[in-house]
């Protein structure tokens, strides 16, 4: 009479495990708020279930406070967004003192997005973060919106190596994820240099270098001329890059770029990403990340998957 053995197993046992371990940090699920799109965590309170998230990346932090860029900072494009914020932030010390305690309280893993305009600045910032309560550093060598540093370090394998090495030394206690630029001429080479220099994980993509012209004023919309493109518009390109990168290096890859729905997130997880970040989509629809988390679970239940890594279609081509 034992025709339906599944009914005898408690449902909890068949429930998929959405947790993921990235370089020693355990996230309850693979959905992380992307840097610069979620402030310091509390801004979105009420509009989504923040405690449910796997992690939160802070706005890009620099050693000294920065006022950010002048002029227009955001400009909508078809299914996307150009931004030129220019790393406005209160500086790492003020962050640790004023923002981090409340951010820690929210529940998700705290990932500090670190930027700088010189190797020294990066290294000093990393040292400060190393002795704070953050869980992980995301090293931003891919910001297209600052004049010195930022993306310059992410375009060239040697430059990337040269900045990561000292950061790795200054922050020996924190896992280091390096955020790559889709604008790099040879992404795989940059990625390999990052790993060689000690990166424990890689995240990509940061925004694509792009621009807009104000035809009424007859000048570029942004004072820096170019700005960074994000949002669903870039997703097919970002996915292709994540797919290729998962083939090129052996460290965990966190995929992002235009993810707005569980279906989108599943594409990246199937391409080999161990986790994903959601940026601009939260602007358009604040509960997007909660829906993504439950949608991933639903899909796994439907397909009978118990662990996230079963999603990777190259490592687990079955089903």
């Amino acid at each position: 009479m034992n025709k339906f053995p599944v009914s005898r197993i408690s449902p909890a046992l068949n429930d998929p495990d959405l947790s993921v371990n990235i370089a020693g940090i355990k996230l309850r699920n693979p959905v992380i708020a992307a840097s610069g799109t979620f402030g310091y965590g509390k801004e979105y309170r009420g509009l989504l279930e923040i405690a449910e998230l796997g992690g939160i990346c802070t706005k890009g932090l620099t050693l000294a406070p920065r006022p950010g860029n002048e002029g227009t900072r955001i400009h909508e494009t078809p299914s996307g967004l150009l931004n030129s914020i220019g790393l406005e932030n209160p500086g790492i010390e003020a962050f640790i003192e004023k923002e981090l305690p409340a951010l820690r309280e929210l529940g998700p893993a705290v990932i500090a997005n670190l930027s700088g305009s010189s190797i020294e600045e990066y290294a000093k910032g990393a040292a400060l973060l190393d002795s704070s309560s953050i869980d992980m550093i995301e090293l931003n060598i891919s910001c297209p919106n600052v004049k010195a540093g930022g993306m310059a370090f992410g375009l060239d394998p040697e430059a990337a190596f040269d900045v990561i090495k000292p950061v790795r030394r200054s922050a020996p206690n924190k896992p280091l994820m390096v955020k790559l630029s889709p604008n790099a001429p040879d992404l795989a080479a940059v990625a390999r240099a990052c790993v060689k220099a000690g990166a424990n994980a890689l995240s990509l993509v940061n925004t694509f270098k792009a621009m807009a012209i104000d035809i009424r004023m007859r000048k570029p919309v942004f004072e820096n001329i170019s700005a960074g493109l994000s949002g669903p518009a870039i997703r097919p390109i970002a996915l292709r890059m994540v797919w290729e990168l998962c083939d090129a290096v052996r460290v965990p890859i966190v995929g992002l770029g235009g993810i707005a729905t569980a279906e989108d997130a599943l594409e990246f997880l199937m391409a080999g990403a161990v986790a994903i970040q959601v940026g601009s989509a939260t602007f358009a629809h604040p509960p997007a990340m909660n829906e993504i988390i439950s949608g991933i679970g639903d899909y796994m239940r439907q397909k009978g998957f118990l662990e996230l890594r079963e999603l990777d279609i190259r490592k687990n081509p079955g089903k």
Partner: protein
Amino acid sequence: MSSFPAAKRCFLCECLSYDEINEETISLEFSWPGPQPRGGQFFMMKAEFGGVFLGRPISTAGWEAPGILRFIIARRGRGSEELMNLRPGNRAELSGPLGNCWADAGAVIPEGPAALISGGVGVAPLACYAPELGKRSYDFYAGFKNRPYGLENVKPRSLVIATEDGSEGLEGRIPDFFSPKGYSIVFSCGPVPMLKTVAAICEESGVPCYISMERHMACGTGACLGCTVKTRTGNRRCCADGPIFNAVEVVW
């Protein structure tokens, strides 16, 4: 800075009514199961099946009944056009209430008559605020291109209307008919040139003046730092530190 306003929420809301005010302006009512906004607050609004990526900030214009919010929307670009295309049965996602409110500013000001000065759809947040003034007396100065609208729930000591084409009330622009003398505080919302003029004449007369600023917004919650208003004390976020600012603080 806003302590008053209630927590924010996000819901997919049904459009309950659509009214054409004129070719360029409509009013919509939505069901809203979340916290009641205060005058001056806004929502990020996005049609369920729209084509624009981001929501658009739209001020609450008022409500006839609890659980229902009214908005007045003017055509500007594609985003406002999509919202103007909503009809009963369609839905839009509303996130809010967002930003600070006029009362945050007005509360710290000595008693005395207030002046509310609007231009175009700027009437919405001020008309929403008017009932909150309770027994405090106020005058309402409202400027329009042509036919006035949005003033149904406004019960001012005196109502001054100006239209650009002179079709109703005074002919001309509203700041031409306004003097801050005799007011303890001024609240204003409308096009930038109007706000600048109002702010300047208030500053000259030493009358406190609060204005609602407009910026393109991505998050509407203070998270993205995209909607910077420059003030004498540094960058402020229009959406979270505003939209209402003390006019003397604003660096234009």
